[in-house]
């Protein structure tokens, strides 16, 4: 029983972390058909912004609980800035190009941003562990879990719900769905597609920086963290189907639970299991589990 609970809890916590990273990636692909390699850098910038601002905040002797607001503010602020810079400054000139070209462009942005991060923050690690420990921990069948990690599950679930609600239950979401299905027809109908792209990209970027800022308290924030997570995020969105929020959630849950089971039952396969699951899914459904159906233009 203890083992099963441990596998479920660890799987859920890992899945919630994966979903936070993958949500922005899949949203941008779903709307803009851009497989955004630079999403890893957005995550890293969020982590650096969160860790450094929390450091400044706590060094100033302010109440520790305020650190959570600082993390949130750092994520939103850095996400808006970097999202606007990348989309308005570069990507808008590339719209309409082949998806492979866009992968190369965003890969170039990833490499540039990695160096920008080093220039801005240096190569020494940043720590912001106070928010991680401040919430205490909960004992479950004899195992302790950091309440911060448990909170991540609820935060991810809330973001998933908000994205679903925003896309399916709001006017702007329905307009966005029209753009997703056929951007040319949507433009003919008077929808400002360019603005939709900008807003979507900025929301995707904020989701990336938010994931980074929320992760920062539990890790050593150092160069290269963005590149590490982007590979995992790709595995998640490929399993679930590129462009599908539900797919990202399902992919994150499958990867999280499979990895957790492996760590507990057969640790040697911990790394293999993630990509093994991906290979099996792609063998039977090359478009992923929940890929958005696309109309063929003749």
């Amino acid at each position: 029983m203890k083992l099963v609970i441990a596998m479920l809890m660890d799987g859920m916590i890992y899945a919630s972390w994966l979903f936070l990273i993958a949500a922005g990636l899949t949203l941008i692909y779903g709307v803009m058909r851009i497989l955004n390699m630079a999403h890893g850098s957005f995550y890293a910038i969020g982590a650096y912004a969160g860790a450094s601002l929390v450091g400044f905040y706590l060094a100033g002797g302010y109440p520790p609980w305020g650190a959570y607001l600082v993390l949130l503010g750092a994520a939103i602020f850095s996400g808006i800035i970097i999202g606007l810079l990348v989309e308005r400054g570069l990507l808008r000139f590339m719209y309409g190009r082949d998806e492979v070209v866009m992968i190369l462009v965003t890969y170039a942005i990833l490499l540039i941003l990695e160096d920008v991060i080093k220039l801005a923050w240096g190569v020494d690690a940043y720590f912001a562990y106070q928010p991680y420990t401040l919430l205490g921990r909960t004992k479950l069948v004899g195992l302790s879990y950091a309440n911060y990690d448990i909170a991540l599950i609820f935060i991810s679930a809330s973001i998933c719900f908000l994205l679903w609600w925003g896309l399916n239950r709001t006017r702007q979401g329905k307009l966005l769905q029209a753009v997703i299905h056929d951007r040319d027809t949507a433009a003919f109908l008077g929808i400002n597609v360019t603005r939709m792209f900008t807003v979507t990209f900025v929301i995707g970027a904020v989701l990336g920086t938010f994931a980074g800022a929320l992760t920062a308290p539990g890790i050593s924030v150092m160069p290269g963290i963005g590149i590490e997570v982007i590979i995992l995020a790709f595995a998640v969105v490929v399993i679930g189907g590129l462009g599908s929020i539900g797919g990202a959630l399902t992919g994150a849950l499958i990867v999280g639970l499979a990895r957790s089971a492996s760590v507990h039952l057969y640790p040697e396969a911990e790394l293999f299991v993630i990509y093994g699951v991906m290979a099996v899914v792609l063998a039977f459904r090359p478009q992923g589990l929940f890929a958005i159906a696309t109309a063929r233009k003749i």
Partner: protein
Amino acid sequence: MFRSFAKKSTLTGLILVSAAAQPILAADDYKLGLVTFLSGGAAGPFGIPAQNAAKLVLETLNAGQLPAPYNTTGINGRTIVPVFMDEAGGATKQASEYRNLVERQGVDAVVGYISSGDCLAVPAVAEQLKTLTVLFDCGTPRVFEENDFKYVFRTGPTATMDNVAAAHYINETVEGLKSVSGINQNYSFGHESWADFNGSLNQLKAGVDVTTEQFPKIYAGQYGAEISALMVNSANVIHSSFWGGDMEAFLLQGSARGLFEDQTALLTTGESAMYRLSDQIPEGTILGGRGPFGVFAPDTALNRWFREAYTSEFGTPPTYPAYKMVQGILGLKLATEKAALNVNGQPSTEDVVSAFEYLEYEGPGGKVSMNRGKGHQATMEMVYGRYALQDGKPAVTDVRHYAAACVTPPEGMTSVSWIEKGMPDAQCD
């Protein structure tokens, strides 16, 4: 006309900028290649401290102001001009970058390499180019156990020495030791460290159970499931050779979940985090420094100078990568100057190689004996202790020293077979 002028101006500008970026060399300067991580996850905890130490010691050496016997200028009177190179990118890249250092930059010697993978890849090129190369930090014992290199030396201890000493330490200090678990990175250093530790512990104390062995991916950053597995399969001691950001993340996440309240962590590279995470490391955690470095270094004039100068310059005490870099540079200096005693003018690379073999010298971490790998591999005493806060400052208590002869396989025997055979000829007090 304008285009031609613009081209010429650009070219001239580029030449000027490139010339300004190159150090101005005198004919007798000693050009030293220094390879360490300047980017990536290993830069902060290892690469940058090592680079800082190199800058500090080279500047002081060039001024002839290091404590005796290193108080002569540069290397054999030649001013040392450093050429730094980033170790990031993997073994294949490093092998070609090494070639660039020697053939294009024209360095006289190279001191470098933190990654075991790089230390296994670069020596073959060094031999081909007949360039003196000092490996300063990497841990895999395979470099000299599986090869005979003429131009390559390693002035730091191997990971086997770390882990055999760690096994001795817990065997002696953990009362009622019945079980251990392990969490190590999924690459050569992690696997070899765990195998050496577990193998030597089996030889020292029969019947110690292994409750779980975890090998997460290097730079994974998230260890929630592994921490749960370590809790479910509770042991007296958790062994880890994690380093850098991985070790720090494991410490943060493990401490937040109370992992170390019932189990003692044994961190073979933990010394490098004791100042950075001083309020997160649980007291009683067993720390190693990959040798007698950092807080474990002896109280000598050289060490006092190094600690004071480094702390004053960089605002934090030097950790073991910094010590090991200095040790590598000083070994090269001494070997060159020893070789110069028998020749007129500057010694050849072959002269320095002969002088370096079986050299014994004092580094900031104490005595270094180049007495394994046919005189190319250093041995040193190993030290472990327990983390404690003394007057609110990070410190170590219950420190134990293990002689090099106690934790090192004899010449000609591999670490694996030495441990399997019960560590014959080990000379422990």
